[in-house]
């Protein structure tokens, strides 16, 4: 090993516990790496170097005092800027929160802190997590570490790029319609979107409340599992938090895939899919078969409706969730003279283009005279999409599919044509609409040497099999070990 930042999470944990390195040295190594790459990549919205080093020093002292301390003590982590970290600015990628300092920790952050993890900064995101490219951030676009003229995906593009560029060993993201899985795919890292309700949403700045889930991005499944094991589990402060017992992923089991039934949905391999993506994903499915899995062709007939259903339901929920940003309790205020004009001018001037577009779309879908035809209809078709998955999971244990129709696209490619951008989300939206878990990981490169991802989708609360199978794949291949040249 030539540089500390080249360690992956499990190696970091090992080196810290063997006292080969200190948390201070490690944290400093990442901060130096960030210093070097940040001007080119624009990954972080807010960095917290002094506090991070203080947390690292504290962790080193704690480890001296009690060598049996938790194994994640002193390990750095980056957090998507839609999650509240007490005392550290949270913008959600928006100007309307440019000065917001959360007075409390999100539940997931509380759990990271309890384990002694070091929070190094807040990563870039599309405004309020609305987007698939980080181009909708008020703090500038993040550049893909594999090709800086391209987007990193989104909305957790900052977290995905941070892991790919080794500016952090691990990061938290959120996934409402693919926002962990798609950037993971574009940046060649591993990203988990857990089952809806598995991880608390308390302290997450809400976008689409029936869809939002907090996920993890890391270099491989092993790394992601360590943090998922830490953050999942019931939280009484989130009314939709699952009553299921806390999940504990174990990846030490048998790596052959005997008796694992993998479904390949016809609908995910139709027109619009880049041929190199199709080839890489089919090769990966072939690898799963070689490892012992049974491959079944399945149907998810309502897939084509996922885009309209999602882009009615998520904006509808967003239009209600974002009503709280009114210039009265937090954020800057544009003084309109009276209350009404203060509301409309604050919101009109400080929300970005895509956010306003989705608020307009959602408000329309919920407005008198149109609610039944749009929001109501979308809710019913959502039931049909869930039904597709229920039927599929009677026959197979998990589903293998592409994450996105293409590899990372060029910055500006979809500018001025929001619908074409929405259509890019076709393969990731259904899992959110059904509330099921998914994991994306690298399975190859296209001719431009841009990473290609595949996702596995499981039934509700089946994270274990999802991650076991992804781990088997990574034990047999080395795509996840490839790094961009920076």
């Amino acid at each position: 090993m030539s540089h500390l930042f080249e360690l992956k999470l499990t190696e970091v944990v090992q080196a810290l516990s063997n006292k080969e390195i200190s948390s201070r040295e490690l944290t400093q190594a990442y901060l130096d790496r960030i210093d070097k790459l940040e001007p080119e990549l624009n990954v972080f919205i807010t960095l917290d170097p002094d506090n991070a080093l203080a947390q690292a020093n504290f962790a080193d002292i704690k480890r001296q005092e009690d060598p049996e301390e938790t194994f994640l003590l002193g390990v750095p982590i980056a957090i998507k800027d839609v999650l509240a970290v007490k005392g550290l600015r949270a913008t959600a990628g928006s100007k309307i929160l440019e000065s917001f300092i959360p007075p409390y920790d999100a539940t997931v952050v509380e759990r990271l802190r309890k384990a002694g993890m070091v929070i190094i900064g807040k990563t870039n995101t599309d405004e309020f997590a609305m987007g698939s490219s980080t181009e909708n951030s008020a703090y500038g676009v993040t550049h893909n570490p594999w090709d800086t003229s391209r987007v990193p995906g989104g909305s957790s593009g900052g977290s995905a790029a941070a892991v790919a560029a080794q500016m952090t060993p691990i990061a938290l993201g959120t996934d409402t319609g693919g926002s962990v899985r798609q950037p993971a795919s574009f940046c060649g890292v591993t990203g988990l979107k857990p089952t809806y309700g598995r991880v608390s949403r308390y302290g997450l700045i809400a976008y689409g409340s029936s869809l939002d889930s907090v996920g993890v991005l890391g270099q491989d499944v092993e790394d992601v599992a360590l943090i998922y094991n830490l953050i999942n589990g019931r939280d009484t402060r989130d009314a939709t938090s699952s009553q299921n017992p806390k999940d504990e992923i174990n990846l030490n089991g048998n790596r052959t895939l005997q008796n694992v039934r993998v479904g390949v949905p016809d609908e995910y391999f139709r027109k619009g899919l880049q041929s190199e993506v199709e080839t890489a994903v089919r090769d990966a499915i072939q690898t799963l078969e070689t490892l012992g899995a049974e491959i079944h062709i399945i149907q998810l007939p309502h897939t084509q409706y996922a885009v309209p259903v999602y882009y009615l339901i998520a904006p509808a929920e967003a239009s209600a969730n974002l009503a709280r940003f009114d210039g009265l309790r937090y954020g800057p205020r544009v003084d309109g003279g009276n209350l009404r004009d203060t509301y409309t001018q604050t919101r009109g001037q400080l929300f970005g283009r895509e956010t306003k577009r989705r608020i307009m779309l959602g408000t329309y879908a919920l407005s008198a005279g149109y609610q039944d035809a749009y929001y109501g209809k979308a809710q019913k078709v959502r039931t049909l999409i869930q039904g597709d998955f229920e039927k599929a999971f009677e026959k197979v244990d998990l589903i293998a599919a592409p994450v996105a129709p293409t590899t990372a696209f060029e910055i500006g490619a979809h500018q001025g044509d929001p619908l074409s951008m929405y259509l890019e989300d076709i393969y990731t939206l259904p899992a959110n609409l059904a509330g099921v878990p998914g994991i994306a990981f690298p399975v190859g490169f296209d001719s431009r040497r841009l990473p290609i991802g595949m996702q596995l989708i499981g039934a509700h609360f089946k994270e274990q099999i999802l991650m076991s199978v992804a781990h088997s794949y990574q034990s047999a291949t080395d795509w996840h070990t490839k790094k961009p040249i920076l």
Partner: protein
Amino acid sequence: MTLTQELVEHIAELARLDLSDKEMTRYRQQLSAILEYFEALQAIDTDNISPTSGMQEGSSMLRPDDTIDGLGIDDVLSNAPDIHGRQFRVPPIFN
């Protein structure tokens, strides 16, 4: 389908968004195109399908009715653009 100018203005009013004429025009065009694409949903027979409104398992969850300390007043006010003593100060509601 094309949304009328009046309807777009009405939506902006409901959403409490002050939009420029240019924004109105842009959103009118874009939302019209998006909604036209979404018309595909109307072809699906959903007569006997119940809507999905949330992802909760089973019925609503209950918790013990314990007292939990919320944020202190200083914390709550710490991000406000304008305060008066221990209160948020807002612009006049009536002239």
